C-alpha cells in the first residue's frame, strides 16, 4: 500500500479507461497521457492497463508502506526517493517507509506513478479509472487527499533501476517548437460549415491553452472561428479528441472526462496517436492543428503500437541480460 502525504490539485487513480459504457452516458475517463501510463506499466512488467496515479500539479508526496517497485513517467519532474534524486521516466525499488517527493514539473503537464502490480482499487464497470462526474471508480470516485492509503496488488520481486527514453523524444514531431504542441487531426462532420478563410484561420493559428483547460476539455483561445451560419446539432455521441466550436468561436478539445455527447459543431478530431500530446500540453502554452487523412491517422497509430512493442522487447532483453549475470 501507499499513503498520500501531500497533494496539490486533482490527482487521481487512472487506468487506460472505460470504453464500453457509452450507452449509459459513461465516458472513458482514463489516463490523459495513456502512452506514459503504458510505458510505466511496461517498465514494471505490469499489465499495461494496470492503474496508476495521474498527478497534474505539484508538490506531491507519498510514503510506501512496504518493499515495492514503482515507476515515474509522463511529465518531466524533479523527484526524490528516500532523499535520492531519480531521473525522468524511471523505475526504482523502495523499502518500507521510503518517501517519494516530487517538487517541480519543468516540462509536461501530468506525471504518472505506477507500482509493481498496479494500484488495486476495485474494477467498476470494467475499469479502475476515476469517473469524477459519476463519483465512482478510482479511489471512491474522487481526487486523492492527504491520508488516503491506496492498496497495491502483489509486487514483483526486487528489480533493478531502469529508465525509458521519454515518448516525446522517440515520437518527436517534426517542426515542433519547444513551447508549441502540434497535433494531427482528422476533419469532422461540420468542417464544411466553415468557409475557406475560416478553415485557414483554424489551421494557421497558434492556439493558446487557457487556464480553464482540464480533464474535461482543453479550452483554446485565438481568433474567433465561426461557421457560415449558426449550427445547432441534435445531440449525438462524441469521443475524446473531438474539437467542438461553441458559438463564441473558441475551440474546445474534448478530453478524457468529457461528456459522451454534445451538439456544438465539430470541426475536427485529434487522432488517438496524438491525444496524449494534448494531455501533456501545459496551461498557457500553444497548440497548433495539422490536418491528416484517416489512413494516415491509422498509420500513426501503428507507429505508436510499434514504439510500445519495441519498449516491451527492450525491457525483456535487458531483464534477460541482467538475469544471465
Amino acid at each position, binding site marked *: 500500500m501507499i499513503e498520500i502525504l501531500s497533494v496539490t490539485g486533482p490527482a487521481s487513480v487512472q487506468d487506460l479507461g472505460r470504453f464500453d459504457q457509452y450507452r449509459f452516458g459513461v465516458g472513458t475517463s482514463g489516463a490523459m497521457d495513456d502512452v506514459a501510463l503504458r510505458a510505466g506499466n511496461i517498465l514494471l512488467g505490469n499489465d499495461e492497463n494496470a492503474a496508476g496515479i495521474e498527478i497534474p500539479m505539484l508538490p506531491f508526496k507519498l510514503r510506501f508502506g512496504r518493499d515495492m517497485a514503482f515507476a515515474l513517467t509522463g511529465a518531466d519532474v524533479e523527484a526524490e526517493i528516500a532523499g535520492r534524486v531519480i531521473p525522468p521516466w524511471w523505475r526504482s525499488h523502495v523499502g518500507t517507509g521510503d518517501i517519494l517527493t516530487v517538487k517541480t514539473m519543468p516540462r509536461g503537464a501530468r506525471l504518472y506513478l505506477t507500482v509493481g502490480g498496479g494500484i488495486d482499487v476495485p474494477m467498476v464497470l470494467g475499469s479502475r479509472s476515476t469517473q469524477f462526474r459519476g463519483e465512482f471508480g478510482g479511489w471512491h470516485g474522487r481526487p486523492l487527499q492527504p491520508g488516503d492509503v491506496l492498496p497495491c496488488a502483489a509486487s514483483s520481486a526486487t528489480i533493478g*533501476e531502469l529508465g525509458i527514453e521519454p515518448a516525446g523524444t522517440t515520437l518527436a514531431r517534426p517542426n515542433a517548437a519547444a513551447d508549441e504542441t502540434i497535433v494531427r487531426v482528422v476533419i469532422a462532420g461540420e468542417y464544411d460549415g466553415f468557409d475557406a478563410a475560416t478553415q485557414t484561420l483554424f489551421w494557421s493559428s497558434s492556439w493558446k491553452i487557457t487556464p480553464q483547460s482540464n480533464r474535461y476539455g482543453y479550452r483554446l483561445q485565438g481568433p474567433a472561428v465561426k461557421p457560415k451560419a449558426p449550427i445547432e446539432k441534435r445531440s449525438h455521441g462524441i469521443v475524446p479528441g473531438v474539437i467542438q466550436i461553441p458559438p463564441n468561436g473558441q475551440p474546445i478539445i474534448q478530453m478524457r472526462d468529457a461528456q459522451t455527447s454534445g451538439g456544438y459543431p465539430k470541426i475536427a478530431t485529434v487522432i488517438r496517436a496524438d491525444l496524449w500530446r494534448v494531455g501533456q500540453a501545459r496551461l498557457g502554452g500553444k497548440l497548433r492543428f495539422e490536418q491528416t487523412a484517416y489512413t494516415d491517422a491509422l498509420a500513426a497509430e501503428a507507429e505508436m503500437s510499434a514504439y510500445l512493442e519495441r519498449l516491451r*522487447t527492450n525491457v525483456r532483453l535487458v531483464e534477460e*541480460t541482467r538475469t544471465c549475470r
Partner: protein
Amino acid sequence: MPIELTDIARLAQILERSGVDTIEIEEPGQSLKLVVDTDPRMAASPTLIVPDADHSVIAKADIAGHFLAAHPWRDQPFVVPGQRIEAGEIVGLVKIGLLYSPIVAPAAGTVDAVIVEPGATVGYATPIVRIRPIN
C-alpha cells in the same frame, strides 16, 4: 528486418560470455561485424587515463550500449570531476535501444574523472567514472 541496436547489444553480450571475440553476420542489404574488446579501457579517451595505483574505485557499465553523461531532458551531466557523490548514486546512463541502464557509484567519494566520452559505445564492465573514495 533491420538489425536493431538491442540485437547488437544482445549479440555482444553473448560473445563476451562465450569467450568468442569476433562475429560477422551478413543479410541481404546489410552486414554486421562485432569485435569484442578484451582491453576494458579501449572505449576510454586515452588522455584521461592516468595509471593509478592508489585506492580509486571505478563505476562500470553493467550492460552494452552507448554512454550518456546526462539524461536527454537535462542540460547538466549526472556528475562532474570534483563532485562529492554517495554510494549507489547514478553517475551516467547506458542507452540500449529505448532503455537507459544506470551506472552507479560503487562507493562514496569524489569524482576524479569521467573516463568515457558521451555517445561512446561501451560494453559490460567498461570503466566509466573514476572515484576517489573517502577514507
